[in-house]
């Protein structure tokens, strides 16, 4: 993240975007490699973060984070929310002169179409995010309004949700045709795809943004899941850009001649949760939870287990909405942890089940969990560790299931909410208490009335400045009481590319893998 900042400051800001810039035609070819691939090429069918890796190249949203991670209008020229407290209306003015890869101009109709697909549970897996929308109103070709039943802060938090999809084209070719030949407004046009092998793209000559655009004509994204192969492909020159340099090799990569690296947060947020909602659980006592937060030397774990590929955070990560530089993580202090346990009435500690994720959703996440549990044992919180593969782990973590097993101990968990990240929706899931049937607290082991009230207030706050202030307030309360788990670290990924490549990292969409600006040095 620190490196990213330095880079971003040096880069051109987005201010003079509409100024006519030198739009050289893109030339040449470039091959890059990803560790994982998007499953779908249709933004309405988006299911998880990895889908961004492909969708983010070809499609665009109304708003996105700029090079300094600040919210930046993108396909929207401007937007505003009227009546934010009672019956909000979001009015968006679209940028003019934007065309799809097939030449069709972008209009309000396309966004209405995108909205209709996103709210259809048969198409989209995120239909619930449209639940508060009452109707979509087309004002003219370049203006539309979204009327809300009630305030919905999450809508703002997620970059206004909608992705531009060409209505006319889609209706002509149908769903299957669209999957085979997807069309968006983004800097890259679809050429071909072979699942688990590669995606071929071509720079779109008619791209609207003349300043931030690819300077290479052909891009091939290879999929190489095995770390060693991907590294070998990079070292032998078969590819010139890779993501996910294995943590144990990052140091080596930083010293390779003719190679640039960038280490940035991946977008995931890890934490250790415990059943504080249960009256009979030791974790019901705030001092026990604080003891946990003091007991683990997270910095040492990051350094050795994660080879430095992690960034500590307190509730809200650096750069994310509502980040508060004054809010610090609990320091490592074994004596303090023991003292807190004693004060809480556990002078000789206690035994507890500890659930660990064994599937490598993040590098070394299993080892990280084992290390955390070992540190807990050192202050007297003795773990009976149980490893869980991904499916069983998700199942254990969810609330409101019928039947055993019940999560009744320490759980290594995580949340992800795009980049640079906004904690509102995740907090609704794990800081707000579980309310059956309402969607609140669907993986929550916390029950705190004040936290509930604040999270609900955040959900209904749509004005960005107010949201930031509220997030800071919640974060402080959450940290002091160790509610919604103890936040540990955000995984860091390292990208590497050869000197001859000019690459400007854009965080989102694409989780640093969006090739908004990439080219070859002349």
């Amino acid at each position, binding site marked *: 993240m620190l490196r990213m900042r330095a880079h971003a400051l040096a880069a051109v800001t987005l201010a003079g975007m509409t100024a006519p810039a030198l739009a050289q035609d893109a030339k040449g070819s470039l091959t890059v490699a990803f560790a994982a691939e998007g499953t779908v090429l249709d933004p309405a069918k988006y299911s998880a973060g990895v889908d961004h890796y492909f969708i983010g190249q070809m499609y665009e949203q109304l708003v996105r984070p700029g090079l300094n991670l600040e919210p930046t209008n993108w396909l929207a020229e401007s937007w505003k929310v009227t009546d934010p407290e009672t019956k909000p209306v979001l009015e968006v003015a679209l940028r003019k002169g934007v065309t799809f890869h097939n030449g069709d101009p972008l209009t309000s109709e396309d966004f209405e179409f995108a909205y209709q697909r996103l709210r259809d549970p048969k198409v989209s897996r995120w239909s619930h995010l449209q639940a508060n929308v009452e109707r979509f109103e087309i004002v003219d070709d370049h203006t539309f309004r979204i009327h809300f039943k009630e305030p919905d802060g999450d809508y703002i938090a997620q970059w206004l949700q909608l992705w531009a999809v060409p209505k006319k084209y889609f209706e002509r070719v149908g769903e299957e045709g669209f999957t085979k030949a997807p069309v968006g407004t983004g800097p890259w046009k679809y050429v071909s795809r072979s699942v688990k092998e590669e995606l071929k793209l071509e720079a779109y000559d008619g791209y609207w943004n003349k300043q931030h655009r690819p300077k290479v004509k052909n891009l091939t994204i290879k999929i190489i899941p095995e*770390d*060693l192969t991907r590294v070998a492909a990079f070292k032998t020159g078969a590819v010139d850009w890779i993501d996910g340099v*294995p943590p*144990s*090799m990052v140091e080596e990569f930083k010293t390779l001649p003719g190679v640039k690296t960038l280490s940035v947060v991946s977008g995931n947020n890890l934490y250790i949760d415990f059943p504080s909602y249960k009256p009979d659980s030791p974790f019901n006592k705030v001092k026990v939870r604080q003891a946990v937060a003091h007991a683990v030397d997270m910095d*040492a*774990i990051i350094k*050795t*287990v994660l080879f430095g590929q992690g960034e500590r955070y307190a509730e809200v990560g650096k750069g994310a909405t509502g980040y508060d530089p004054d809010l610090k993580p609990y320091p490592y202090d074994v004596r303090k942890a023991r003292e807190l346990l004693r004060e809480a009435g556990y002078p000789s500690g206690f035994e507890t089940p500890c659930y*660990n994720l*064994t*599937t490598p959703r993040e*590098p*070394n996440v*299993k*080892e990280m969990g*084992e*290390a955390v549990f*070992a540190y807990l044992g050192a202050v007297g919180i003795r773990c009976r*560790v*149980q*490893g*869980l*593969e991904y*499916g*069983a782990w998700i199942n254990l973590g969810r609330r409101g299931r019928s039947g055993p097993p019940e999560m009744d101990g320490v759980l290594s968990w995580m949340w992800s909410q795009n980049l640079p990240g906004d904690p509102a929706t995740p907090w609704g899931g794990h800081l707000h208490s579980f309310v059956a049937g309402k969607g609140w607290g669907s993986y929550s082991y916390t029950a705190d009335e004040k936290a509930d009230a604040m999270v609900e207030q955040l959900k209904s706050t749509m004005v960005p400045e107010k949201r930031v202030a509220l997030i800071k307030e919640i974060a402080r309360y959450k940290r002091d009481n160790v509610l919604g788990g103890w936040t540990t670290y955000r995984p860091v990924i390292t990208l590497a590319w050869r000197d001859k490549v000019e690459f400007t990292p854009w965080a989102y969409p694409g989780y640093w893998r969006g090739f908004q600006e990439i080219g070859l040095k002349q």
Partner: protein
Amino acid sequence: MAEGAFAQAQPAGPPVAQSRPRFGRVRRLFRNGLPIGPLLLFGMVVIAGLSGDGLAPHDPGALNLGAAFRPPAWLAGGSAAHLFGTDNLGRDIFSRVIVGANIALVVAAYAIVLSGTVGALVGMVAGFFGGAVDALVMRLVDIQMSIPSLALALVLAAVLNPGLSTVVIVITITYWTWYARIIRGEILSLKERDYVALARVAGVSTPVIFARHLLPNILNTLLVLATLQIGQVIIFEASLSFLGLGIQSPDVSWGLMLADARNYIQNAWWAITIPGVAIALTCLSANLIGDWLRDTIDPKRRQL
């Protein structure tokens, strides 16, 4: 792994003509005595397995982040404290190999007894009674054998939640068909023997025929099958654990150790080599003992 499918496939082999007794040097060695090397080696594994934590110089689960990736004692940088070096979390590999022997043997023992018992019973019943019972059993065996054993095991492990008991159940389900088929074949031929036929004509009750005439005659075969299965089970367990649906950390399994070490193949070759050597030596000695048993007490079954 091919192990399961492969093992099951074996009995379907063609009728290879039996050879006359031969007295090659190797064979004579076997004839004249026990396979000393394999027995010693396997004995060591059993002792390590039975001792559990007892023989381990360190707590096999104890982390020591400051001592990660220490090479084995005989290499520069290694120390006598960690004979086989340490892994990425600074855990002592020697201790983990010893504790891994325990899991391997526990899994093998339970899985072999269970699958052997179930398979032998089903095979005896099917072979003896024939008819509809036999047809039903054989179709079940066919169905199961038409699914790659590892695919079946993976899905089953996902149903039952991975762990030690799941591994045992999965292996039992995978291997019972192997016993059932072979024992059924044995019974079919035993049934035709005069003394069995006579006993039946004389009205001896079925349980008595099973206990007095059939069971003693298949015990040799069962013993050979069980010994030959040890290596297969250990490899099968390692494969499942390696894929993440077998033994779960913090339990220690050789296959799991290999899965963990895989990410550091460049940093610490010993972490990926030593647990594999443990598997290979254990299986090799078990297989050699099995071969010797087969050749000695049941020379007809050379094709197993």
